[in-house]
Structure formats: C-alpha cells, structure tokens
C-alpha cells in the first residue's frame, strides 16, 4: 500500500480501495541524465493526488510516463490492469482511459471547440456523430462554455481554452485525469475558473493526478500530496500533514520558498 496509507492518514473521502495505477521501480534517463529515480506510486480509484516540487524535479515527466508521452526505461507501470510496454495496442488502450490536460492547452486550432471535443470519441471510440456531439455539449455545459461551441480555440481566452481542453478529455470518459500544470500558463484572473472546474471534477469522484503550484487547491482537494525533488519522490502525505508537519528538509525548504513570498 502507499506510504500515505501505511502512515495511517485517512483520505478526505472514502476510497474503493481498488487500485488503478501501479508504478514499481520506475526509472528514466534523458541520455546520461537520470530524471526519474525509482518511482513507486500506487493510486486508487477516486483518489486525488497533487504532485509538487521545484522545476526540473521530474514531476511532469512522471505523469507523462503514465500515458506514455514519455517512455520509461526501467520498472513497470500498470494502468487499469494494462502494462505500458512498447506494445502500441496497449499504449492506445491506456490512452483512451487516461485523459490529459496540458499547460499550454494544446487544443486543435483548425477545429471548432465542438469538433475538438467530438474528434476522439468519433474516431477512437467509434461513437456516432450525433451522440458524440450531444455528450460534448453536456461536458461543455459542465465547464460552462457551451455557448462557445462553434468558435475556434484562437477566439477564446486562456481560461476558456483550458476549460475546453478539460471537456475534450472528459468526452473520452477517462478513468484517470492527468493535469500537467493546468493553470501555469494562465493570466491570474483566469486561474480560478479552471480550478473551479477541477474542484467540481474531484467532487464527482474522478481519479486525478495534478502537477500544480496551486497550494490552495492541494489543501482543499487533494487526498495526498506528493513532493518530488531531483527525480525522486521525497515525501507523500495528506495535505494536512504535508503542510503542517513536513518530514524532510527538502520539503521544508520548498514550502518556505513557495509559501513565503
């Protein structure tokens, strides 16, 4: 079981105990540079995890390994019972179940908001177009942007684009959502609208892994906070413990740097 569980801390809501992600001894190198060092991480269904750490600590790389946007060289990653290897079929299967939201949104600029949302359901899930559009509209309504469905991404603000990106991922009905610094590229006044959508998702029981510097979000939403530094998981704990009683010096240093400015 995860370290958080073994330390006896309790999640904010009841978890099924069913495991959906299991990383064992994951290592990755960029050339000679050791970016991920012996990562062990288990995630249960419905668990909300915030990953934080200084830049270059490997947190983005770690969650990008979970849908094989990055390849790990050692160790095993099993998502929903499927191991990520060079097998393309497996990779595509995992990617269907794992939604990803990027720092720079990465919406498709040549497609309308609605087409952005229906593309993968139609082509990957082979869903009829009408059904895909209906679902897309319901998710766009949920992220409060339905009235922009016919516009192109370039006509929207950053916050709106990021909400569309979240809706686009949700349209695939993923079992896990990965967020890679979803608010870092946003103007300050737009951060809240995106965080509100993410909080709503968390309340609905979505399994989430979120790399973010939004410590307020971590405190109020996360079941577990993971602190990474120099490619390793240094500490993981409930937000209460993590913020009030950090165990390692590196964590204390990091927290003092981000909280006291």
């Amino acid at each position, binding site marked *: 079981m995860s370290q958080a569980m073994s330390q006896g801390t309790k999640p904010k809501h009841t978890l099924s105990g069913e495991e959906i992600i299991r990383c064992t001894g994951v290592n990755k190198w960029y050339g000679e540079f050791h970016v991920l060092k012996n990562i062990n991480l288990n995630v249960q269904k419905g668990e909300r995890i915030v990953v934080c750490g200084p830049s270059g600590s490997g947190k983005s790389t770690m969650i990008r390994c979970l*849908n*094989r*946007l990055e390849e790990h060289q050692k160790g095993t990653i099993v998502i929903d019972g499927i191991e990520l290897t060079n097998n393309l079929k497996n990779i*595509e*299967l995992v*990617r*269907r179940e*794992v*939604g*990803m939201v*990027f720092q*720079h949104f*990465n*919406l*498709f*600029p*040549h*497609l309308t908001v609605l087409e952005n949302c229906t*593309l*993968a359901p139609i*082509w*990957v899930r082979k869903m009829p177009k009408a059904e895909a559009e209906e679902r897309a509209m319901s998710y766009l309504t949920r992220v409060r942007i339905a009235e922009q469905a016919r516009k*192109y*991404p*370039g*006509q929207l603000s950053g916050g709106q684009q990021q909400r569309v*990106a979240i809706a*686009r*991922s949700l349209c*695939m009905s993923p079992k896990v959502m990965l967020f890679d610094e979803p608010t870092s590229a946003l103007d300050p006044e737009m951060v809240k609208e995106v965080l509100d959508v993410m909080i709503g998702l968390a309340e609905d029981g979505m399994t989430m892994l979120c790399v973010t510097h939004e410590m307020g979000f971590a405190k109020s939403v996360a079941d577990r906070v993971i602190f990474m530094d120099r490619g390793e998981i240094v500490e993981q704990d409930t937000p209460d413990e993590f913020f009030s009683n950090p165990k390692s010096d590196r964590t204390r240093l990091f927290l003092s740097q981000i909280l006291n400015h």
Partner: protein
Amino acid sequence: MTDNVQSVGLPDERPPANTVGPIAWLRSNLFNSWYNAILTILVLALLVSAIPPFVGWLLVNAHGFDSTSTVCRQDAGGACWGFIGEKLRFIMFGMFPWDEQWRPLLTICVFIALLVASCDRRFWKPWFGLVWAAGLTLVAILMWGGVFGLTYVENTLWGGLPLTIILSVIGLAVAFPVSILLALGRRSDMPAVKVLCVTYIELIRGVPLISLLFMASVMLPLFLPNGVSVDKLLRAQIAFIMFAAAYMAEAIRGGLQAIPKGQYEAADGLGLSYWQKMRKIILPQALAIAIPPLVNTFISFFKDTSLVIIIGLYDLLGTAKAALSDPSWRGFYREAYLFIGVIYWIFCFSMSKYSQKLERDLNRGHRR
C-alpha cells in the same frame, strides 16, 4: 481638476491637405526622396518609350487573324496574327487527326471543369475522388478512342495543350499523395523507412529534371528485357511524378516541422492512432502552412512539362516550335511565344490567385 476635462462636442476636422489626396499619395509613394524621384522619372521615361511601340506592334499595325504570311512579310511593322489564325489548331492540339480535334478540345474542357470544381472546398469529400476517376476515364476515352465508334489515336500523336495539362495535372495529382508519404517517412521513428525516404528525396533532388527525363527515355529501355517496352509518354509521366514528389515532400516537411509538439502530444493523449493523428490533426494544419511552397512547386512543374520536348514529345511549347518550322511561317517566333506565354501565364496566375484565396479561407476563424 475640471481643467483636464476636454470640452465635449468638438467638430470633426479635415486632415491637413498635404496628408491626403492624390498629391499626398504621389509625394509619399513616388517622390519621397531625391533618389526615388529620379527612379520614378526614369521608369516613367522607360514606360513612355516602350509602351507605344509595343501597342503599335501588338494592335495598331498588326495584321489580323486572317492575314497571310506574304502580306505580313511585305509590311513587317506589326504583329502577324495570321500565324496564330492558321496554326492555332496545330499549336493547341499538335498532330492529333484534324477531323477528330474536338476530342482534345473536350479533354481540355473536362480538365478545366474538374480543376475548377476541385477549387470548391465543399467538394473536398472522399466521393469527389470518384468524380476525378470518372473524369480521367472520359479523358482517356476521348484521347485514345478505339471505343464507342471513336477512331483509335496513338499517344505519339497527342500534343499541344492537352498534353501539357495531362502531364502536369496527372503528374501533380499522383505526386501529391506520394509526397505526403515521403514527408511523413522522412520524419518517421522507423530508421529503415526514414533512410529510404531521405535517400529517395536527396537522390532525386540532386539531379536535374532533364537528366531524369533522358534516363526515362534512353536508359530505361536498355535495362528492360527485349520485347518489353514502356510507352514513351508514360515514362515521361513517371519521371515527372518521381521528381515532383521529391520536391513537394520537402515543402510538406516544412509544414510538418511548423506544427508544435503539443499538437502531437494532445492527439496521442486522446488515444488517436498514428494515421488518425496525421489525417485529422497534423496534416490539415501542416498542408495549410505548406500552401505557398506547394503552389510554387505546382507552378514551376506546370511550366517544366515543356522540357519533354527533349525526348520528342510535343507539348504546348513543342507544337509552337514545330509550327514555326513551316517554311512559309518561319520567323514569326514573337507571335508564337507571346501566344503560348499568355496561355501559360493564365494557368499559373489562376493557381497563384486560388492559392491566396485558399490561404485566407483556411486561416479565417482559427487564428487570433
């Protein structure tokens, strides 16, 4: 405080007279510095000295389309459009049997109809490929004949504008998908595919088109076993396709490289397969970016079809030259080249104009 508030209701005033109107335009565009003023005057002098004689030759002193070469030679002060009048059908259709020349004429019409229809984005659907297939079948029937009571015409007799259009349109239409595959292959993760594509592109780009045409017409038959012969026109067509594909692949690669990595990652992250990702996300954007260099290639290849003259095919330029070899019309090359120049220009200018419209349409909406 109130001193800083402008009084409301000031009337609109005209801008100063020296900043608007024709005088101001002249001053800012043609005489804004002493060297531009000199240039303007020089260019004006050049135009004044060149245009009236040209117009005089072209129209005023010219002989009409029904004039004979004898009349033209007696009074050589103007163009002799009688040459075009008499040789028009030869220049346009080459040695195609005289009584059957409605067939190449219809061929030209079919091609123009297909091309104009293809310009409309509403027809950019898979079924339109069938329209093209039907159109090309019709062209083949018209040109070759041998069915439906049409007499059979060997393709060595084809010439003029239909030949130019067949070589360039079919050449570019086949080369385009090949070039997409080459461009994707060049960026592939699979080393064998990549090496193959890079080698092909660099090899073909490294030799002149003429040498490729020579190879296709002279060397290829040497390598083929006795009795096997590939049609000369087909060999030229293949040489064109190979050459155009290599060039277009590089234009498309430029477009592919302009697509941000995030687009690939977002497509991957949604679980799209490689081909879905390319077809739906990457290529639509990359090809839109690659339009200017692609059209550049299209235009230069349309004109490069005239190189087939060196292997004995008579395209538009070839038939014009052949028409000039008629002893009674020898020397009227200005009329001949001006005439086919205008035809080439109409095609190339239409391509250029259409590509500009397409760029605007594709960029509308989704760019801020």
